[in-house]
């Protein structure tokens, strides 16, 4: 995955080791999903993160959001009983037809 990301250059002043926050947050999310970036991107991101508390906060909060979203996806919710009864009927009718 070391093809140049055109978005990075497009965001601001091209790609240099000196990233702006727009580029750094973008790369943070990319890394979050792909686990790794190109060497150049990785180095530039590390450098930026060491200096920018806002982007560090962004990274932390993004991870927290992911956890909270994943947690909310496995929450138990019960189907209302009356809807279950309706579905039972539907299935039984269907089975009897065939």
């Amino acid at each position, binding site marked *: 995955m070391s093809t140049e990301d055109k978005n990075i250059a497009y965001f601001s002043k091209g790609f240099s080791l000196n990233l*702006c926050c727009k580029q750094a947050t973008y790369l943070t999310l990319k890394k979050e999903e792909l686990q790794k970036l190109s060497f150049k991107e990785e180095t530039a991101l590390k450098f930026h993160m060491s200096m920018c508390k806002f982007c560090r906060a962004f990274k932390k909060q993004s991870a*927290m959001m992911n956890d909270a979203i994943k947690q909310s996806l496995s929450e138990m919710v019960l189907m209302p009983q009356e809807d279950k009864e309706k579905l039972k009927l539907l*299935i039984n009718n269907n089975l009897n037809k065939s």
Partner: protein
Amino acid sequence: MSQTSTAPLLNPEKWIDSYADYLYAFAYNRVNDEETAKDLVQETFLSALKAKDSFKGEAAEKTWLVSILKNKVIDHYRKNAAHPQQSFEESEQYKVAYSHYFTDDGLREGHWQKSTSPKVWNTSDKSNIEQKEFKNILAKCLAKLPKTWSSVFSLKYLEEEESSTICKELDITSSNYWVIIHRAKLQMRECLEKNWVKA
């Protein structure tokens, strides 16, 4: 007439008692709407009945049903993303400009705007995040995103869908995908900070 009309591995009479709650929760947690969730579960059972003769027993009954439901949920997101009844202007108006987050002038180009830069979140009570409240706010924030964005964002969390799959499902380029994820996350973060965590 087929000789094995009811595969021994499937027990449709027991489906509701065994799986309805699980499937309903799976759908509800992903579409955030009771009626839509009910419809998706019903469609899942009907599709399963139709396909029951081709069930080979390679997967467990439950896994098989979940995979059918998952496809229905993806379909739902895809329809949502296309959303023909929503005009372009309408879908655009929720699109918060990049310049809302990052300056586009001079030396500080691309740096955080003061007003929307991340504040420190008070996470000392993170362990007892009120799930119910979070869910409501999350749904509210998701609903504020342009339809395509919220579909991309939701698909990302559906069973850890690969980005290449999402791009194919929603017919977007990978470069577009990353920009959507970036902008959606910025907007979600801001929305959650305003409504959920007391910064």
